[in-house]
C-alpha cells in the first residue's frame, strides 16, 4: 500500500501543514489514486517543516519545506509518474542514516514520533504498543516493576532528575487504599516543546507509561495535567483515551485482569508554577496553583491528601520501553549516573532547530554543531542557555562538557526539561538574564517574600544596568539577593529563578562591567547603550535609511551624505539594517 504521511505536529501545522494535507487529499481524490493519506506527529526536525513522506511500497521519500504547490507537484510527478522531485527531497530510505540531524541521535521516546499516526491506536499496537503493560500485568508484581525501573537508572525528565524508581517505591510503600498517578504535562519553559511533541506524536506511549506506574504504586486513578495552550495534544490525548477505553485498556478490570485504572485529562490554566508538583495538585483540586511546603511529599500526602506519584511526560514515555526491553536495554545508553537518552529542544541561533533525542553524555558541541548544524549565518557561538528560566548559561569555552544531570549542575545550569537555546555574538547576556527573570517574576505565584519581591528587585537592577544606570555595587547586590532568594524560597521556581543571573555573572561578568562601568553593550543589543552614526565618507545619499527611520532622525539631500540626529534617534536599528554601504555605524 502506498502512503503519504504529512507532519501535523504543532510545528507542521504552523508551517502550513493543514493546507498541504488538504491539497494532497484533493489531488489524490481527483486522480483516484490508491494512496493512503495520513497525518503524523513531529519527527523532530521542525526547521524543515512541512515534512511530507511518501512511501511507494518499497522506499521512503522524505520531502521538506513542502508547500501546497509543491505537494501537488509531488503527487503529479512522483506518485503518478514515479519521478521524485530531487531538489526538495532530503532523504530516501531511513532518515537516521541520511540526515546529519538524525545521525547522532538515539531515539527511544521519539522513536515513533513522525512515524506513526498518533490518532490510530492500531498503529501504536502495530509497533509493540501496550506490549509492555501486558507483560507487566502477566509477569511482574508491583514491587518487581519498581525494581526494574530502579535498575534502569531512569531519572525524572521534568527537571530535577529525581530517580523515578525510588519515587515509585515511596508511593508504593505509602499506606492507603486510594492513590493517584499524575502525568505532568504542564510544559512551561519558554522554548521547550518536548512534551508537546511526544503527546502530539505518540500519546499512547505516555498512557501506557501511566498505566504501568499506576500498577506499580497501586493507584486506580490518574490525571494528565496538560496546559490548555496545547490544543492539538489535548485533542490527540482525548482520542487516545477514548480508544483505550474502547479497547478495555482503561477502566475496570483492564487487559482482562482485576486491575482497575481510570484516567482523566485536566487542562491547566497556563500558570508556569503549576509545573511544580504541589501547585499542580492544588490546581487539580480547584484551588489557586500555589506550592505548599514539603514535607509531606506527594508520595505521602498528595492529591486530595492521598499518596500520589507525579511524573513528567518524557519520563513516562520511557517506561514502556524499559519494561518491554529490560533495564539494560535502557541504561546501555548514557552515563553511569544519568542513564538513557534525553530529548532536547534545540532553539535559538542554531541552523537546525527542533527536537533531538541523544544519549546522555553527549557534548554540547556535538549537539550544537553535529545535530544543530552550527550557528546561523556562521556567526560566533557564544553560549547555550540550558534548562529554561530555571537554568543557566554555559559559555562556548565549556562546549566540551558532557551533558548529564550532575555535570550540568556543577556549572550552575540544570538539565531542566531539556530546553537548549543557542546564543551567538549578538546576544547580550545581561539582557538575556533580564529576559528570563522577567518571565519567572511574572510567573511567581506571589506566595514567598523573596520570590515575589526579591526577584522583582533583581529585575529592576538588571533593567537599570541595561539602561546604562547601573552602579558598581549592583553586581554584589545582585549576587547577594540571588543567593538569598535561592536559600529562602519554598519551591523550585524561586529557588532557581536567580540561576540565569548567577551563571551570566559567573561566566560573563565582563559584560556586566561593560554595561555598568563603560556604559557599553558589546552585543549592541541594549538600546540605551548603543549609538548610531552615519559615516559621511561611506554614505552615498541613497536616502534608504532616512525613509526607514520612524522618527525622522535622519536627514540629508539626495546623493549627499546624511546626518543622524541623536536626540531624535530611538535606536531601533532600522537604518543599520537597511544600509547597503555599511555607512551606518553602531557603537
Amino acid at each position, binding site marked *: 500500500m502506498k502512503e503519504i504521511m504529512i507532519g501535523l505536529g504543532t510545528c507542521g501545522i504552523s508551517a502550513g501543514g493543514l493546507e498541504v494535507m488538504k491539497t494532497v487529499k484533493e489531488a489524490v481524490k481527483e486522480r483516484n489514486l490508491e494512496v493512503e493519506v495520513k497525518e503524523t506527529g513531529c519527527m523532530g526536525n521542525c526547521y524543515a517543516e512541512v515534512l511530507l513522506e511518501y512511501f511507494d511500497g518499497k522506499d521512503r521519500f522524505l520531502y521538506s519545506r513542502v508547500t501546497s504547490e509543491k505537494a501537488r507537484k509531488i503527487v503529479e510527478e512522483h506518485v503518478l509518474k514515479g519521478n521524485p522531485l530531487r531538489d526538495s527531497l532530503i532523504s530516501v530510505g531511513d532518515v537516521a542514516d541520511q540526515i546529519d540531524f538524525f545521525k547522532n541521535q538515539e531515539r527511544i521516546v521519539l522513536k515513533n514520533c513522525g512515524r506513526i499516526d498518533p490518532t490510530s491506536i492500531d498503529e501504536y499496537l502495530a509497533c509493540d504498543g501496550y506490549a509492555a503493560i501486558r507483560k507487566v500485568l502477566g509477569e511482574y508484581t508491583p514491587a518487581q516493576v519498581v525494581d526494574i525501573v530502579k535498575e534502569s537508572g531512569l531519572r525524572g525528565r521534568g527537571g530535577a532528575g529525581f530517580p523515578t524508581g525510588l519515587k515509585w517505591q515511596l508511593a508504593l510503600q505509602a499506606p492507603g487504599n486510594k492513590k493517584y498517578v499524575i502525568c505532568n504535562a504542564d510544559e512551561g519553559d519558554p522554548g521547550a516543546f518536548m512534551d508537546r511533541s511526544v503527546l502530539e506524536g505518540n500519546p499512547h506511549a505516555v498512557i501506557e507509561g501511566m498505566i504501568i506506574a499506576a500498577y506499580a504504586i497501586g493507584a486506580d486513578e490518574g490525571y494528565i495535567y496538560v496546559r490548555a495552550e496545547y490544543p492539538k495534544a489535548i485533542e490527540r490525548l482525548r482520542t487516545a483515551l477514548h480508544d483505550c477505553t474502547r479497547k478495555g485498556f482503561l477502566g475496570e478490570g483492564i487487559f482482562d485482569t482485576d486491575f482497575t485504572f481510570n484516567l482523566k485529562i485536566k487542562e491547566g490554566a497556563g500558570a508556569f*508554577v503549576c509545573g511544580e508538583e504541589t501547585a499542580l495538585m492544588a490546581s487539580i483540586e480547584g484551588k489557586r496553583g500555589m506550592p505548599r511546603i514539603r514535607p509531606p511529599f506527594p508520595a505521602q500526602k498528595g492529591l486530595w491528601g492521598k499518596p500520589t506519584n507525579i511524573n513528567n511526560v518524557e519520563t513516562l514515555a520511557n517506561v514502556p520501553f524499559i519494561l518491554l526491553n529490560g533495564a539494560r536495554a535502557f541504561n546501555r545508553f548514557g552515563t553511569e549516573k544519568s542513564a538513557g537518552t534525553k530529548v532536547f529542544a534545540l532553539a535559538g541561533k542554531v541552523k537546525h532547530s527542533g527536537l533531538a533525542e541523544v544519549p546522555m553524555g553527549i557534548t554540547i558541541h556535538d549537539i550544537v554543531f553535529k545535530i544543530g548544524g552550527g550557528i546561523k549565518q556562521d556567526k560566533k557561538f557564544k553560549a547555550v542557555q540550558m534548562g529554561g528560566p530555571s537554568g543557566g548559561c554555559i559559555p562556548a569555552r565549556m562546549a566540551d562538557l558532557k551533558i548529564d544531570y550532575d555535570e550540568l549542575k556543577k556549572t550552575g545550569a540544570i538539565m531542566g526539561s531539556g530546553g537548549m537555546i543557542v546564543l551567538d555574538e549578538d546576544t547580550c547576556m545581561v539582557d538575556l538574564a533580564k529576559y528570563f527573570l522577567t518571565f519567572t517574576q511574572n510567573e511567581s505565584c506571589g506566595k514567598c517574600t523573596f520570590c515575589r519581591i526579591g526577584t522583582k528587585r533583581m529585575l529592576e537592577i538588571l533593567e537599570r544596568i541595561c539602561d546604562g544606570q547601573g552602579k558598581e555595587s549592583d553586581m554584589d547586590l545582585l549576587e547577594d539577593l540571588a543567593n*538569598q532568594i535561592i536559600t529562602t524560597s519554598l519551591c523550585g521556581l524561586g529557588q532557581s529563578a536567580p540561576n540565569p543571573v548567577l551563571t551570566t555573572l559567573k561566566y560573563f561578568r565582563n559584560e556586566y562591567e561593560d554595561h555598568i562601568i563603560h556604559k557599553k553593550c558589546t552585543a549592541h543589543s541594549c538600546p540605551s547603550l548603543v549609538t548610531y552614526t552615519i559615516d559621511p565618507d561611506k554614505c552615498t545619499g541613497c536616502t534608504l535609511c532616512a525613509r526607514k527611520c520612524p522618527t525622522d532622525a535622519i536627514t540629508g539631500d539626495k546623493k549627499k551624505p546624511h546626518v543622524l540626529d541623536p536626540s531624535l534617534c530611538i535606536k531601533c536599528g532600522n537604518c543599520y539594517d537597511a544600509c547597503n554601504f555599511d555607512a551606518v555605524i553602531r557603537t
Partner: protein
Amino acid sequence: MKKIEITINGKKYPVNPASTIYEIVTEKGIDDIPTLCHEERLEPYGSCFVCVVEVEGQKKLLPSCSTRPREGMKIQTRSERVIRARKTALELLFSNHYADCIGPCTHNCPASVDAQTYIALISMGKHDEALQLVKKTNPFPLAIGRVCVRDCETVCRRCIIDEPVAINFLKRYVADADLKDMWSPDIPRGTGKSVAVIGGGPSGLTCAYYLRLQGHRVRVFEKLPELGGMFRYGIPEYRLPKDILDREIQWILNTGIEAECNRELGRDFTLDSLLKEQGFDAVYLAVGAQAGSSMRLEHEDDTGGIVRGVEFLRDCQIKGNPELSGTVIVVGGGNTAIDAARTALRCGADSVKLVYRRSIKEMPAHEAEVKAAREEGVEMHFLSNPKRLIREGDRLKAIECLKMELVDDEKGGRPRPVPIAGSEFTIECSLCISAIGQKVDTTFNDSPTRCDLESWGTLIVREDTFETSVKGVFAGGDAVLGPWTAVAAIGHGRRAAEAISGYLKTGRASKPPVRFYSFKHNLAEVTESELSHHQKIKREKMPELPLRERKENFDEVELGFSRQQAQKETLRCLECGCTEYHDCALRRYADEYQLDISNYVGEVRKYQVDNRHPFISLDANKCINCGRCIRTCSEMLKVSALGFVYRGFSAVARPAMENALMETNCISCGNCIDACPTGAITEKYPYKVVGTLPRENHASICNFCSLGCNLNYRKISDDIYYISNAQNEAVLRSHNQGYLCVKGRFGYRHLQELDRLLKPAIQREGKPRTVSMEEAVQHTQKRIRDLVEKYGPGSIGVFASPKLSNEELYLLNKLARRGIGTNRIHSFSNLLSGLHGDRVDRSIGMAVSTTDFDQMQESDVVVTFNTDFTEENHIIAQKIKSAGKRGARIIEINSNETKLTPFAHLWVDTKRGTNTVLFNGLVREVIRQKCHDPKVGDRIDNFPRLKEQVEEFDPAEVCRLCGVSREVYDEFIAQLVNREHRVTLVTNIDNLKEKAEHDLDAALNYLMLTGRVGQPHSGIIVLRDYSNSTGLMDMGVHPRYLPGYVTPEEKTEVDRIARLWEADLPAVFTGEEMTYDSIRENIRGALVFGENPFSHMESVRSLANVEFLMVCDVYSCESTEQAEVVLPMANHLEKTGSFTSAERRVQRKERMNEPRTGMDNLELINRIYSGFAPAYRGDLPAVILDEIRRVNRYYQEVRPGDIWGRDLFSAGHAPRVKKPAFALFPTSTRSFRQKDQSILLSEKYFVTKIKGKLML
C-alpha cells in the same frame, strides 16, 4: 509520642517530633522567632520567610513555622545568616508596603509632637487628652502654637489636595482652651540629683521641665532679666503676647523648677563652679545664638542709625518700644527681618522697606508672616542688596543697593544671587535694621573647662545624646544648631532631658531607641489622583485683628480658632498614620531588626483603599501576602470570601472576583481583621485614627447569643475601644479560638453609639424629675410596700433580661422571692419565645444542652433544625462545618437556605412549622424498624401512647405535610435510624420563624427512644438567642424553678434553699406558671431590669393593670418613658460577673470600665433588696457567686470556664427523675409566629444599625 533529641543554639532538648521548630523554640522560651504568616490556629504555610532558622548541613534556610525536627538536628535560631535573611525579608516587604506608620506631620515635627493623634482627640472633643498628648513632648503649646514654623504643615498630605491642615492653630486651640484651669502633671518623688540649665529660652526650659518630670532638681540660670529667651526677646508682642508667655513659663516653673535671672555663665559662674562647687550633677547648655551677624559694609559699626535685628527686638522688650519716624530699612528675609519690619511699623515709622537679595520664593520667613507684613504696608524690595552706606556725619542717611539676579547653584543648593553691574539705586532712611543672620555668642566658653566648638562657633555634641566634650555637660538648641527654630530647640530640650536622665541614673547618657517607620513618600510620590476620593475642603481661616486696628499697637493679631472652627478643621485631617501602629507585627520587627530599605526601593504596588464594606476596610497597600486572612476565611470559617489574585509582584489578597466584600459570600465576621498581622484589613472605627495611643487588653464574653464566645476589648480610653482578639492569647485559646460572628465583632458598637441613660428619674404625669439614686430607690421601695399591703406580695412582678449576669439574676430572684415574697419572676424574652419550664421535665429535666460543642464535633451525624445560620450562631456553624470536614454527615432542616446549607450533605427543606411532623415521622420509623431498645417501654413511660401519637405519620403523610421529597426523606430516615451513628441535634429554641410549639419535645422523644441522651458524641445542643439565657434559667428566674432547676415537688431541696435563704420558701414558691394573661390579671407593680416590654404589643397589654412600673436600663426606650421610676443601669463593660453559655459553660468576666451611672448593678439591686431583707456586704460579685455555689446544686463544683453538670445526663434522661416519660402533645403544623422586634435594645441596635447596613 516518643521524644527525639535535637540541638538548638548549642543546647540539647528532648522534643516531640510532631511539633514544629517554631513551636518548640517558642514554647520552651528559647528565643523569640519572628513570624508574619504563621499563627497557631492555622496550618503551617511558610511564605514570609522571616521565621527562618539555620539547620546544620542544610544549604537552605528553613522556615521554622513549618519544619519539624529530626533526630540529631542542629538548629541555630540567631546565626548571622539567619538575622541577615530575616532583615532582607523584612526590607523587601517594606519596599512594597506603600503605607505610613505615623503621620508625616508627626514624623517631621522636630519636637515629635503627635499631631495626627491630638487632632483626632480634638475631633472627639477630648481637649484635655489632646493637650496632655502635646505636652508629652512639647511643654510650650501656648507659645509654639503661635509662632511655630510648622514643619508639620509643609509635609501635610492635604497640601496635595488643597492646603495643609491648620495643625498648629489646632495646637494653639487646645492650649488656649486649657488656660482657664491649666492641667498640671504629676511629679514623682525626688531622685536626689540636680541639674543646672544655662539659658531660660525654649530649649533650656523644655529640658528643665522634662527633667523635673523625672524627679530631678533643676535650676535655670538666665543672663537677661526675664525667662523666655527668643520667645520673649525675639518675637514681638503682637505675635506672642507676653502675658500668655508668662503664663506658660509660670506653668513650667510650677513643676518645681528654680530660676535665677541676670546670672551669666562665664561672668557670674563657670562650668567648673557649677559641677564642682555647687554640686550639680549635670549641666545643660542652651545659651542660644543671639548675636546678630554683620552686613560687612564699611562703617557698619561706627554709624548711627544702624541696628541689628535681634538687638532691636530685644531692646523693644527690655527698654520699651522706641518711637520711630521716617523710612526704616530692614535688610534680610528671615523671620527676624519680618518681625523687625512689622515692629518698626508699629513704632510709628512712616514707611518700612524690606531689602532682600533673593526673591519672595526663597524667603526663609514663614509665608503667612510675609503676607501679613505686606498687608500691613511693609514694602518689599526683592533681588536687592545693600552695597554701601551713605552717611551724613556719622549718621546713616541712605543706603545704596544693587539689583541682583539669581543663578542656579551647581551644588544643588538655593539659587545664588549675583549682583547686576551698574544697577545701583539708593533708598533714603532714618534707620536701618540688619537682620541677615545670628550666631552663637561664645564668650561663655572662656573658662578653663571649655567645650569644643565648631569653627563657626556652635557647640559640638554627640547627635544622639547631646553630650559635649566635657563630662556631665550637655548642650542643645540654637547653641548647637546655630540660629534655628524654636520647635527644634524644644525637641533638643526634651531629648537632652532623656539623655541626661539616663546619665544621672546610670552614669551613661541614654540613647533614643532606633525606630523604623514606613512612609509612602519614601517609596513613591504621593499623587493627587490617589487622594482624589477626598473632598476639597477649605482650610479654616484664622480670625485676625482688622488691619486698621493693628497700626501703632502691639495687640495680638491672630485671635485663635473658635470651637466650631477647630472641630471643622480636624475633619480635614487625612489620617495618614496607621490605626494598627501598636499591633502591626511588621512594625515591631522593623524596629527590632533595624532595617534599611534603601537598596530595595523600586516599583511599589498602589491601591485605592477599599472602604465599600460598612465595617471593614481593605488597604491592599499594606498587604504582605501572608495569606492569613484567606486561610482563616477558607480553612477555619469555610467561607472563602478572600483569595489571591494575579501573579508575581502584583499578587495580592483580595475579595473573590475582586468584588466588594459585600458581594462575595462574606459573612462580615471580621475574623480576617484579627488574622491580618499588619493594617491591611482593619475595622472602620467610628472615630478618627488614634493609632499611637497605648491600648490595654480586656478579655470579656460576648453579650449577644448564647455561645459564650470569648473576646478581647482593645481599650484606649473608657469610650474608645474595639474588639480585637489577636492580642489576647487566652481568648485565642478559648473554646471559640477567638473567632467571632458579625454580632460579636461589630455589635458592641451600641455601647459607643447609643446615648446612655445616666440619671435616675421619677416621673409623674409624664413629667420626669431627675432625682438621686437614693431617692429613686426609696421611692421604689415605698411603692412596692404599698402595693404589697394593698394587693399582697403576688401583685409584684420582677422581670429580668437574659443578658444580665448570673449574679445579677440570682440577686433579682432573691429580691422577688426572699425580699418581696412574690413568686412572679420571669423574663419577657422567655415569655416571647414561649418557653414553658414543664415541657421537658420528665425527659431531660430542663431545656438545656445534654452535650457540648467538643462532643458534637466528633459525632457521625449532626442534625440542625430551627436554626438560621444566615443570621445567628455563626460560630457553631463553623464548628459544624469542621465536623463535616472531619467526616460527619451534616443534615440541615430548614425551610430556607442558610449559610450552612452549601456544607450540608442533606438539606431537608420542610415547610415552616412542620418539624414536629418530621420528628414524629422519624420516631415512627425508629419504632417500625425496631431500632430502639426493645425494653424501652419498661424504662420510659408513655411508650404505647407514643406509638399511637406517631402512627399516622407514615412517610407519604410526612412528605405531604412537610413538603419534602420522598428521596430526601428516605435519606434523612436512613441516616437517623442507623444505630451505629452517633447523632447530635442542634437547635435554637428562640427561633420563632421556624419552630412549632412541640418541635423540641418531638426531637427529644427521638433521642430518648434511641438512647442518645447523655451518650458520648450524641445528644442535643440547645442554642438560645441571648448571652445568659441558660444562666437565667439556672438562677431560677422562672416561676417554676428555684436556682438549680428545683421544682416545688422537690421538697427537701426547697427546704434546703429556704434554710440557706432564711425564708419561708414553701409559702412563696408555688411553681405556678406565668403567662401574659396571668400577668395582666395579677400584677400591679412591675420591676423590669434590662428589657423593653413596651416595644411589644402582647407584653404591653399584659402590663395594662400595672400601677407602679420601675424600669432599669442602659438606654432610654419606650419602657423608660412609661416608667414611674427610671434607674440607670451599668452596661456589660461595667460589670464583673459570670455568664452561662448554651453548652452550660460558666464563664466569668471582669469589669473594664467603672459604671458611668455611678453605681454597679449589683449594688443597685442590693439597695432595693435592703428595703425588704438584710443587705449584702463586701465584694458583691464574689460574695454572691459564693452563695450561688452553695444554693445551686449544679454549681457547687463549678469553677469559671467549666461546664456544669458534666455527668448530668449519664443516665440517659432527666436527672433526679424516677421514671422518665415520652412527651405527648397534639401535633401542629403551624409555625409559632413571626418574630417580633426584640425587646432588648442591644438586639434592636444590631438589627437596625449593623444588619441594616450589611443588608443581611
